């Protein structure tokens, strides 16, 4: 499975796909994309790397605890859901704010975007936990 071609493709694609997945996440509110798609894309490229170089090889240099990623994501999503209560609004009330920055131009800040980031982490964490467990299992 691990030919030199797969390895090279994985190496080149890894940074690009990760950036693309982040851009999908951030653009999701107005263009195709979103936390779920971004997360699955991230999980895909990491699994490609695992396959191309072998789980053990990758673990030597980079071995995050994926299960803590989905814990963090769920926490973030739940905080976003509950935080409007502090300001006296309803559960899950979203807020939109437009920022005008000198160079970047108009930037839209949406509280639902934070929720989407939570989704992103949950998807990455749970998919890669499953993938890694399945791969490690003898």
């Amino acid at each position: 499975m691990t030919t030199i071609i797969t390895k090279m493709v994985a190496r080149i694609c890894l940074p690009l796909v990760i950036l693309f997945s982040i851009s999908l996440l951030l653009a999701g509110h107005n263009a195709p994309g979103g936390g779920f798609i971004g997360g699955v894309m991230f999980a895909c490229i990491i699994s490609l790397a695992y396959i191309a170089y072998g789980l053990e090889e990758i673990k030597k240099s980079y071995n995050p605890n994926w299960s803590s990623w989905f814990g963090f994501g769920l926490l973030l999503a739940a905080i976003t859901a509950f935080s409007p209560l502090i300001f006296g609004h309803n559960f899950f009330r979203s807020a939109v704010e437009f920022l005008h920055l000198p160079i970047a131009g108009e930037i839209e800040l949406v509280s639902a975007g934070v929720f989407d980031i939570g989704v992103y982490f949950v998807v990455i964490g749970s998919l890669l936990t499953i993938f890694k467990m399945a791969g490690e299992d003898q």
Partner: protein
Amino acid sequence: MVLNMDPFISVSLAIFLPFLLALTIPAVAKLIKYQVGWYATCVAILSFLLITSTAPSILYGKTLHQSIAWLPSMGIDYGIYADGLSTMFGIIVTGIGILIIFYSNAYMNKKEDLPRYYQWLLLFMGSMLGMVFSANTIMLFIFWELTSITSFMLIGYWRNKPESVYGATKSLLITASADLFMLVGFIILKSITGSFDIPTILNSSSLIQSVKGHELFLPTLLLIFIGAAAKSAQGPFYIWLPNAMEAPTPVSAFLHSATMVKAGIYLVARIHPIFSGTEAWFIIISGTGIITMLVAGFLAFRQTDIKALLAYSTISQLAYLMTMYGYTSYEEPGLGVAAATFHLLNHATFKACLFLVAGIVAHEAATRDLTRLGGLKREMPITFIIASIGALSMAGIPPLNGFLSKEMFYESSLQMGHVLGGIYVYLIPGLAVLGGIFTFAYSVKFVTAIFLGPRPNKGLPERIHDPSIIMIIPPAILAILIVLFGLIPSIPIDNLISPAVSSILMQSQELHVQLWHGLTTSLLMTMITFLFGILMYTKYDVIAHWQNNINHKYPFLSINYFYDAFVNNAKGIFTQISSRIQPGPIKRYVVSLLLLLILLFIIPILYLSADIIPQFNFNIHPYEALVFIFMIVAALGAATLPKYLQAVLSLSALGYLVALMFIYLSAPDLALTQVLVETLSTLIFIIAIMKIPQTFKESISKFTFLKDAIISITVASVVLLLMLNANQGIIPPFESLSYYFIEKSLSLAGGHNIVNVIIVDFRGYDTLGEISVMCLAALGVYNIIQSRGENQ
């Protein structure tokens, strides 16, 4: 200490600070390692200060009752009710809590999982405080359950010991299932009085009268009492407490002698104004109390483990309290209540002290077996003195505090017997004395078996000595309190007991207790107790031997026998049922799902579309037709190819073709998702099949093949029928939801991508649920793979 906070806020802080700071313990533990116990001690001190800062005004008769609306539609509030009773409990809980956590610093091994231990201790303390200060029965119930859960975690602290797990499970099963009865009792109480708010009921004599006159009076009382009795290990529910002794000893001292097991007593005292003064109250509460007192006191003889002995003595002492709260006569209701409340405080001091001594002995001598201990007086002089004070107070020897409250117990028993008349004049005091005799005998045994007599040469370490100062201070403080309360009873009586008794009886009470109160009948009863107690002590081993024999011959005489039979049978039966429902092979699940699908769809379709003939007037674009043909080829390949890898690849080809269709139908989000999910699932699939032989080995019998083919074809035709009929007016036309989202997406949520806006905003609640399911799925896979490894 300047704490001029609003009492409502400071009590709330005292409850919730332990919860919040318990969350910080793992972080603190990284900084200061095993010293984290001192941090937990500080938290307990903080709660103690917060409660004592509000105490003075409450103890002078000003009760605090304040609520914030929580679920106004249900009549449930977050409410604090602080009166003499709850403040006394608050002070006992935090005071003993400080001593216990302080003591744990030396008791617990530095290699243990300390953050978990202190976290649960603090969570318990917060729950207990929340319970005693709750103004609302539902809030009380929630905190009550939290104490059960924290107790479960602490009993099962040593997870690898089967006895710990057994004890923890037993305590949770018994207390939590009994608590459900209590919840029903609270709900009936609410339906009678129209309020969940305890002070509202207590302060309204018309409501109390309506409860007493109601036809559901007895069921309500019984239901609530079942919860209280299970928590306080009374009646048949006592069996969980001896097994709970598997917890670390400081935990036993804190939860299972001084505080948590008194929650049931607290509840009985709390509802005293509502239910007392009736025959049912006396029979249920005192009846259970007297029987438990005698049985548990008697069974204590058999125990050879120090902690088991103390557990049975705790059950018996709690039964004293129950009995006394149950004494209600119309002439002098205050006597029993005052005696109970005083004994409650005294029991907390001497029993916590004895447990801490048991911990010291186990820590230094490495055994808790009474038959292997003895003669440690010379090696552990300080411990010996402290243990003697505690045990003699429990036995009721003057001038210690246990003597005073036992005298009051006898006095109230005499009076109750006198009120009832008939044979009760002798029966009730007689039973009380019998309970006292048992207590005397095992209290003396506690000291003599550990500290006096010859020192066994076998099984004890060469050199035993008094423990470090950290472990001496907490029991020493308690021992000093025991002596102090005995010599100058006005200190606790004026400051804690009188306010508590006043708030139970709902009228102000002046109590006077003196060490020497003349030659009364109760003093005579004490003399009898000592005399027969000494006699019984001389026959101690004979009785224990006899009990062992009986237990050996007739195992079904014990309640544990029934508990074990019940739990084991339940386990067996449900293993059988679940192995029928969930046999294992995935194929059977899939088949049953598909059959259900056929049933659910075929009937309505045939019923509704009987007279509608499907029309086949579709415009299929050539490009679409091409994709469809490929899809059919891929599907056939997945079904017929001989190797797993080929079949899986064929299946994923089908998935990519579906994505292609999505693009053609202008749904880029869906297409992207489909491609990515397909990729990932193919990868996982491949990883899984790499580990098994690559060809289908099993030969499929013709019958199975036929069956599978029929099922597949039926499902496919049903789906086809459904699709053909979907547009034919079976479902009445309705306004499509999508217009709403298209319209409001930008204005309400500020997003152009409707799919995403629906996911994260309009239906965000659903998404939160879905990602929680995803996390659970990942945890499930993790557990399945891990546990499968263990089985091999």
